Every structure is written in structure tokens, then in C-alpha cells.
């Protein structure tokens, strides 16, 4: 791979990680018009759930008996379930009580909940896991369960015996597959269409007999599952996960969603890729440019907010007074 192709490849991969979190924002914002700021933390919680499920399966001896594809699916299912529960909890605890308040209230409460999730992982990840599995400190190289505040090795579950390039191609392919499945779900199923109806006009959706409460709950379940897969993919890509990176992914994912248009899934891809490309190319092409990559990336975000506040694929809302 030459210099330029290698940069493009890195940018696409980084863009994928931002896109996965950005889609979470889009899904929640689309249905409820609220920004769920702890989306990045839910994704990192997903990555930690993967590690926990891996250790538990290993402890039970299943990992050594079952084929890796089966164990991976079990691990993913556990993480998806936990993230879906956390996502529903997010809705119940920090969004639903503020339904009739200003939009700032759920924003603040989800920021606060993000801190709670981070601290929960930092403080309780190891003690909780050790309570379930017993005193295991070294499961298998390189999984070494230390305090939740330390960096944790992500189990190599995607093409473990192939080259890193193959793993990265799979990560990109799975990201786009998930987006495609989500697109089909939103446009071809009754539930997806209900979500879109609520997104466009909640009152009218009520009047048309759509069960709004149920639809919102299902949106949070799907959002949680999406973020669990997001956490799995970005953990697999980075190979190491840290409990405190959720806020970083959260702010980047949110920026990507805003640039793309908060209610558009395709916009989230464009926004995520734009951020990924700006960061990688500033770092890769400008000598000593890495220290400026975040400044330039966020300047791009500000420029978009100023000149295209509705986002690249967002719709302009004109209110008649």
C-alpha cells in the first residue's frame, strides 16, 4: 500500500468509528429530538461488555470447545443485550423525566449519565467481573484483566488468524452492512416507518394510531444494539480500549452527526468520513501537523455549523410566524 492509499484507508477506518457513534445520535435525535450525549460511553460500555463476556466464556470453558464464530456470536449477543438495557435505562432515567422540559435538560442529564457510565467502568469493571468469574487475573494472552481504569486489551475475535488488513476490511464491510440493514429497517418495516413518522411529526403519529411509547422504547433498544456493535468494531480496530474514551468518541460522533444533518443516517456517514479524512490528512500530510488535527477538525465543524446549520443532508426547516 503506498503512502496516499494508506492514508485513505486509515481515514475510512477512523471515519467508520465516528460514523457508528454518529448513527446512534441520529437515531435518538430522529425520534425524540434530543441529543443523547452519552452515546460514546454506551459504545465503550459495549466494548467492556465484550471483554467481560469473553472472560466469562473462557472461565466456563466454552471458548475452548465451541467454534470461534459461535462464541463470537454469543459474546456479541451478551454485549448487545447489556447495551440495549443501558440504552433503555438512559431513556428512563435521563430523558423521559424531562420530556416536557427544555431540550437542555436531557442534554445535561445525558452528559452527567456519561460520567456515571465512565466511572462505573473505571471503578467496578474488575470487581464485578471477578465476583462472577472468581479470581482470574490472566485468562489468555493478551487478555489480562486489570483495574477498569487501566487500558484493556480487546479480544481478537474478527479474523484472529488472518492479517490486520483482512480484519480492517471486515470492520469496514460490517460498518456498511449495519448501515444498510438499518436503512432497510427504517424504510421497509412497519416499525421503521413508525419511527420516521414520529421523527417527522409526533402529534400526527399519535393521531394515526402509532404506539409512540413502544416505538421510542424499540428505538432505544436498536440504538443500544447499534452502539454495542460500534463498541465492538472500534475496540477491535484499536485493539486496546480505555474506559474514558467514550467522551472523545461521543464528541466526535456528535460533530459528525451535526455536520451530516442530525436526522440523516447517510449524513452521519458523510460527517464521520469528513472528520476522519480531515484528521488523518492533516496529521499525515503536514509535517508536525498531528497536534493541530483536532483544532482543524473542529474548525471544519464550526464552518459547517455557520454556513450549513441544517447539515450536509439535513432539511432546511422554515417556520412560518
Amino acid at each position, binding site marked *: 500500500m503506498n*503512502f496516499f492509499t*494508506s*492514508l485513505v484507508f*486509515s*481515514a475510512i*477506518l*477512523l471515519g467508520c*468509528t465516528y460514523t457508528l457513534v454518529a448513527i446512534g445520535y441520529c437515531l435518538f435525535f430522529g425520534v425524540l429530538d434530543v441529543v443523547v450525549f452519552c452515546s460514546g460511553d454506551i459504545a465503550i460500555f459495549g466494548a467492556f461488555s465484550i471483554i467481560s463476556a469473553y472472560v466469562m466464556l473462557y472461565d466456563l470453558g466454552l471458548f475452548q470447545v465451541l467454534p470461534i464464530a459461535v462464541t463470537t456470536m454469543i459474546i456479541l449477543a451478551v454485549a448487545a443485550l447489556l447495551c440495549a438495557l443501558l440504552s433503555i435505562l438512559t431513556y428512563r432515567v435521563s430523558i423521559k423525566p424531562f420530556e416536557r422540559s427544555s431540550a437542555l435538560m436531557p442534554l445535561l442529564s445525558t452528559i452527567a449519565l456519561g460520567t456515571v457510565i465512565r466511572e462505573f467502568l*473505571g*471503578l467496578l469493571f474488575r470487581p464485578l467481573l471477578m465476583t462472577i468469574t472468581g479470581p482470574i*487475573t490472566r485468562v489468555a*494472552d*493478551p487478555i*489480562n484483566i*486489570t*483495574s477498569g*481504569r*487501566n*487500558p*484493556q*486489551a480487546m479480544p481478537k475475535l474478527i479474523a484472529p488468524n488472518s492479517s*490486520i488488513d483482512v480484519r480492517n476490511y471486515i470492520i469496514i464491510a460490517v460498518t456498511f452492512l449495519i448501515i444498510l440493514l438499518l436503512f432497510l429497517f427504517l424504510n421497509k418495516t412497519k416499525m421503521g416507518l413508525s419511527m420516521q413518522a414520529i421523527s417527522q411529526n409526533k402529534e400526527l403519529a399519535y393521531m394515526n394510531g402509532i404506539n409512540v411509547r413502544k416505538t421510542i422504547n424499540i428505538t432505544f433498544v436498536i440504538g443500544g444494539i447499534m452502539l454495542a456493535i460500534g463498541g465492538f468494531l472500534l475496540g477491535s480496530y*484499536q*485493539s*486496546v480500549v*480505555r474506559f*474514558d*474514551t467514550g467522551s*472523545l468518541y461521543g464528541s466526535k460522533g456528535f460533530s459528525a452527526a451535526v455536520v451530516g444533518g442530525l436526522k440523516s443516517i447517510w449524513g452521519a456517514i458523510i460527517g464521520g468520513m469528513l472528520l476522519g479524512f480531515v*484528521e*488523518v*490528512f492533516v*496529521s*499525515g500530510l503536514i*509535517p*508536525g*501537523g*498531528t*497536534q493541530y*488535527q*483536532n483544532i482543524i477538525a473542529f474548525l471544519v465543524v464550526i464552518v459547517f455549523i455557520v454556513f450549513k446549520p441544517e447539515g450536509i443532508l439535513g432539511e432546511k426547516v422554515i417556520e412560518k410566524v
Partner: protein
Amino acid sequence: MKKYSFIVSALMIVVVLLSAAVPAFAAPDVVTLGFLAPITGACSAEGSAARNAFMMAIDEANASGEYPYTINVIVIDDQSDPTVGAAGAQKIVSDPTVVAATGHWNSGVAAATSPVFMENEIPFLIWGAIREDLTSEKTYPWVTRSAPTDVQENKPLAKTVIDDLGYTKIFMVSTTDSYGSGNTVAFKKELASRGLEPVGVEEVQSETVDFNAIVTKIVSSGAEAVYWGGVNTEGVYLKEQLYNAKADVLFFGISGIKTDDFLIIGKEAAEGTFAVQPGVRLDSSEAGRKFIEDYESRGFDVAINAYTPYAYEAATILLQALKTLGDDPTPEKMVDAIAKGTFHGVMGETTFDEIGQTTLVAVNLNVIQDGQWVYYEDSEYASGVRKFGGKE
């Protein structure tokens, strides 16, 4: 009767005066030391091992019966955060029984707490923060440091990698924080003194996780070696991503990466990482071997890291200084006892120079071989069985 009542009153006054004066002559029941380290947070492996070693020395001292008071320790978890560290320092100085404090693995945190200790005239010994300007004429004698500085660590590292191993095309990556920028300056000076320039210099913000663009740059620059001037928190990502990109380079750095947390990326990805560690080889002396044995026998869940012996050494210095002051140590007496004393510990003999910097400068070299840190001279890299990256 009047006469007796006068005598009784006079006696009572004498008793009251004596009882008030007694504590001034008697030894205090408790003498307190402050200890600050990142026990949680990204650098918790270093911080908690240091806390374990420090408390081990204090427990031994209390059990020995050699001190006419109980030595109490206020342990502060600075979380590698200057504001948390400064708040902890305030807590320490507000305790009237405190006579000295020791702290920090992170230079930025030490820079934030040193003024607090100086203003409150509490002697402060730095056990693990290495930025050069933390000890100076301005901070002497209140601030002393028993660990070598970043300059003292980078010098022998540069000598080995450039002069002995022959690497000249070096790409430098550091963090923009106080620790990283200190290393960037120190290692650039080492290169310049040999008429060399780095083939590339990149600085990343703390908590960076994606280094792939830098890795692409490193590969295309033709670098033979990558100098990492940060701690393991970000360094572990860079090493992993260099491995993933199959970059044929030597990855080396100073003691910030010499921790077991660096091994989580797996033995293949971590293999051949080269790091300097301050201090003498612990297994080369009786005292060092005893320290390893004692630490391991206590079953701590964190292994000995690069600065763990330095935390133990800091405890030794404070304890030996306390001993010279008999039964009435005060912060005013401790400051001279530390700055002008001579101490014997697991590292050898420590004295402090005119700016409070230790005169005991020793380093050893380490390499990751098969998923473990081993002394370089004992490794298959030194014997020629294995080869570092970046060389034919």
C-alpha cells in the same frame, strides 16, 4: 487558713503551668507524612505499586519500634490530574502533624503541588516526576527529588540507541503535555549534539488513540527507529498500530512505558520494545533482592514497575531523616535533614545537590522479550540471537 489557701492556689498554678508545658517537651504521639500518587486513572499501575512500596516501608518502620511515635501517612490519589493533586496537597498541609510529603509520577501534577508545599513550608520530596525544571534554585531546599530527570534518562538512552546500536534515522513522537514536551526537548538535544536531526517529529494530545496517520508517515519517512516521548497510556496504541502496519522499526522510549500495562497488546505486538529505567538493577544488590522478595511476598495485585523502588527509596529517605531528628521532628528541621543528609537505600547512597536533585544517577536498560520485560544485557537481543527492528 489564709496561708494554706495561698499555698494550695500556688501549687495549683504550678500544676496547671506544668501540665500545659509538658507536651512541648514530650515526643509527639503521631508524626504524619504525605504521599501522593496516581492510584486510579490512566497511570494507576505505577501509582498503586508506588503506594504499596511506600506503605511497606512505613509499616516496617512502625513495627520496628525504632521511632518514639507512630508514623501516620495521608495517602492522596492525584489521578494524574494537577487540580486533584493540588487539592490533595492542601489537605496534607492543613494537618498540623505533617512534617514532610513525597509525591507524584506525573510532572504536570508535581508542578501544581510544589508551590503549595513551599508556601506552607512543608519539605516535599519528588519520587517519580522527572521534568527537569521541577527542582531549581528557586525551589531549593523545600523541594528535592530522588529520581533522575528526563535529561538524565534520555542521555543514556540516546547513547545506547544511537552510539551503541547505530540507529541514526529516528522519528520522534511525543505527547504535548509537560512530560512529553520535556522529552521532545531532551531527546532533540541528544540528537543535535551528535549532528543528527530527527527524520520526523509529531506531537499528539494526551488520550490520543488513533496513530495510523503518523504510522503511515513513519513508514514512508524511512525511519529505522521510533522514539516515543510519552507514557504507556498512548504509547501502547502507537506500538500496536506500528505492529499492525508491519513497520520494521525499533520502538524505544524512557521509563514512562516500562510498565506491565504495556504488555496488554500481546507478546507479538510488544516484542522488542526498548526502554530505559531509572535506578540500579534491583537484583544486583542484597537490599534490592530483599525489596523484591518482600514486595512479592505481600501478594499485591500490581507488579513492581519502573518507579516502584523510587517510592520505597523516598520512604527510606524520609524515615532516615526522621531518625536523625530524634523524638521531635518538625517541618523546619526536616527540610535540612533531607536536603543535606546522606541516605542509604535499595538504590545505593543518595545525597542532594545545590538545587535538590539527587546525585545518584543510575539507569538500566530493558526490552520486552516473549511478553515480559527483561534486562537488556540478559536478553537475546544483547546476545545477538534476536534482532531489533529497523536493522538488516
